[in-house]
């Protein structure tokens, strides 16, 4: 048997935990341990040794890998075949694994234009809280047999089960890419970024940072050349570095000294054309205005009220009290469904208890 396949050992650990009602904390590369709430104290279960690309045929546009596979290894294999993970996942560290990326449903700057991590999930193999190994979805693009459990798993922060293996749709890397930037106000940037949504140009990134609106154009050589004449702005040198730093939170904005003090980094989701919110703090707008980062001392309750009025929601991404609700609280009936779903996968509530919500 493949020594990188430790699914049976993991299954045994879950069966024991089920028997003894032992809470488990699922860990991989540890690069995303700062996300989410403080889970209840639990016995770690390490999936990082369950690794390896199980299947990858570039012609099928599908890659299947075990959860512990380093994201770097997957991206290197894809790059060799001229392909990529089109949701451009942030790594937040060299140790990032596929499992953690899917469990946290993290997507990068390309998200509004190509889709999110969950959009590219085609199937999974998982361990539920009864220690059963289950397969959902598959390795094909279209599959409507059974409920879409594999996409449900994206963003559950390990609370429903342990992802063992995920199959993802992958895409060709664009042949060419260029970034243009122009100086403007936040309101102007929002208007121009949202205006691009109605244009058939091959835009795959748009953000507003440091009084400049950046637009990334990617596609065939001719498409990029043509779009360059239609989208205003100066060509940015070393643009790949900029988008990488944005994706990985390595821009000075995300490394500001105030974040080690009282300030928190908030992730604010609104409709992209929402005008600038008048909330005190420093802003960076990504995803064409749909995902806004705010560095602020403002308390979470006040902030949530203001953002809710604009139809959005808030996550405390970095800093603050990780024992409070980090993610936007759910309405009563929705929370009930979440709790019942959690119980249906994990009846003894052993997985990552409290990591997503206190009551989950």
């Amino acid at each position: 048997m493949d020594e990188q396949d430790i699914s049976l050992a993991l299954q045994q650990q879950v069966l024991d935990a089920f028997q003894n009602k032992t809470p488990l904390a699922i860990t991989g590369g540890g690069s995303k341990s700062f996300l989410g709430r403080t889970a209840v104290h639990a016995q770690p279960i390490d999936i990082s040794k369950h690794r390896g690309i199980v299947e990858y045929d570039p012609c099928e546009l599908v890659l299947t890998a075990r959860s512990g596979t380093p994201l770097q290894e997957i991206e290197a294999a894809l790059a060799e075949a001229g392909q990529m993970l089109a949701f451009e996942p942030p790594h937040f560290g060299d140790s990032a694994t596929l499992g953690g990326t899917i469990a946290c449903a993290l997507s990068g700057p390309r998200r509004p234009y190509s889709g999110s991590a969950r959009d590219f999930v085609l199937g999974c193999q998982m361990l539920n809280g009864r220690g059963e190994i289950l397969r959902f979805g598959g390795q094909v693009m279209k599959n409507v047999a059974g409920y879409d459990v594999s996409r449900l798993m994206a963003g559950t922060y390990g609370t429903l089960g342990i992802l063992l293996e995920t199959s993802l749709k992958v895409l060709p890397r664009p042949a060419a890419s260029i970034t243009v930037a122009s100086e403007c106000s936040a309101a102007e940037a929002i208007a121009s970024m949202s205006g691009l949504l109605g244009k058939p140009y091959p835009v795959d990134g748009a953000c507003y940072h440091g009084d400049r609106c950046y637009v990334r154009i990617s596609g065939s050589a001719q498409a990029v050349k043509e779009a360059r004449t239609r989208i205003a702005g100066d060509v940015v040198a070393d643009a790949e570095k900029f988008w990488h730093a944005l994706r990985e939170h390595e821009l000075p904005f995300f490394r500001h000294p105030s974040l080690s003090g009282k300030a928190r980094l908030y992730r604010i989701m609104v409709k992209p054309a929402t005008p600038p919110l008048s909330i005190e703090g420093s802003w960076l707008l990504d995803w064409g205005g749909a995902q806004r980062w705010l560095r602020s001392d403002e308390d979470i309750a006040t902030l949530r009220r203001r953002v809710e009025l604009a139809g959005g929601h808030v996550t405390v991404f970095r800093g603050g009290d990780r024992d409070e609700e980090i993610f936007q609280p759910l309405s009563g009936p929705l929370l009930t469904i979440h709790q019942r779903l959690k119980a249906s996968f994990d009846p003894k509530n052993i997985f990552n208890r409290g990591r997503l919500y206190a009551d989950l």
Partner: protein
Amino acid sequence: MPHNRKNDVALNIGLLRALRSLLPPESVLVDAEDMRPFECDGLAVYRQLPMVVVLPETIEQVQCIMRLCHAQQVPVVARGAGTGLSGGALPLADGVLLSLAKFKRILSIDPHNAMATVQPGVRNLAISEAVATYGMYYAPDPSSQIACTIGGNVAENSGGVHCLKYGLTVHNILMLKVVTMEGDLLTIGAETLDSPGYDLLALMTGSEGMLGIIVEVTVKLLAKPERAQVVLAAFDDVVKAGEAVGSIIAAGIIPAGLEMMDNLAIQAAEDFVHAGYPRDAEAILLCELDGTHAEVSEYIATVRKILTGSGATEVRTAVDEAERQLFWKGRKSAFPAVGRISPDYYCMDGTIPRRQLPHVLRRISEMSAEYGLAVANVFHAGDGNLHPLILFDANKPGELERTEEYGRRILQLCVEVGGTITGEHGVGIEKIDQMCLQFNNTELAQFHAVKAAFDPSGLLNPGKAVPTLPRCAEFGAMHVHHGKLSHPELERF
């Protein structure tokens, strides 16, 4: 779980009285004649009159109906336009058929945020028509898009010929309003690109009316491509056509549409709409490229080169929009075209990894000889979704049964090569037994548990989409002669 409602006449009358006090008289149908249009969906071999048909027009009415049915433990089946192909909207004799036909308003169009909010009874194509003035459209385009409604599209996770590039329904919606069996109104997803908590939007999409009644849908809109162009290529061998598909993708091109038809489908389509297809070809490929002007020109040149290099006997680019439409018309009318050359046909919907295409087509052709039934193949080649159309005559004794068995074996073959029993038509009642081939008992039990999280009393569309474990045991026993027992651990009865 099987539903065992006591068939109590007094209870039915009580429910009827309550429904009539809730809805205007013309919105509660009980006469067989009035209910006839609701007895089946697009899969007309299954027919059943419900106990009553209701046609609410407000969300509050839907909530009241659900509370009533929940209180009286009466099952409910939701229905959109009834164009589904797997019997998902087949009524229950002791159940309420809840039609969403009156929910047909477009509630808002927001071009700045690239979204529109519509009621579930709005037709798929009507959304694109309504937003065309902004240069936008709604991408998923199932072949029934003139008639099918968005609520049904969500329930079935419908695709279309453009889904390799633009995704399925699940990739193109943002938010749903859903009424549960208990009558609660839930907002699932958000107007923002993601929403807090579990991705219930993914779970709800394609759930075939088993988890909730969809009463409002917010869809994502896309900018209409500046230009679309289609290339037609003919091949003297289906294997070469299949390889050409792989080569296009390997070249880093994602076509907007990539369709394949075999000889019988070509002939039938050509006779029907005169699309200009080469009749003697063993297979044709239709490859559509879209994007900006320069982008399409560049891709067309590359694709033509690849097709010629793959051994195409002919490569033609549509000269104008009219010819492009004509090329597509042939493909889009393939099903009715086959309907003209045979008294009946049965459409299958498996998906396979594309590399398995030559093997699968060979097996289908061998089985065609074995069963003495002709088959025409239409293939969404880009995403591996195969539609073999089995030609038969229901008036000939035993032919329907032979057709169904042939169809089952095709689906079994799809699962064996790593594919699935349904790419886009759904499980419904039609493929409920084949679910036992694709999923084991623990997986099916997990599905039932997921349903119970939304619908603890099991009253929403019971008996569809997910088979009970005893049903799979019986199915396994019935089909033991075709291979190994699928559930050897279960008792047989």
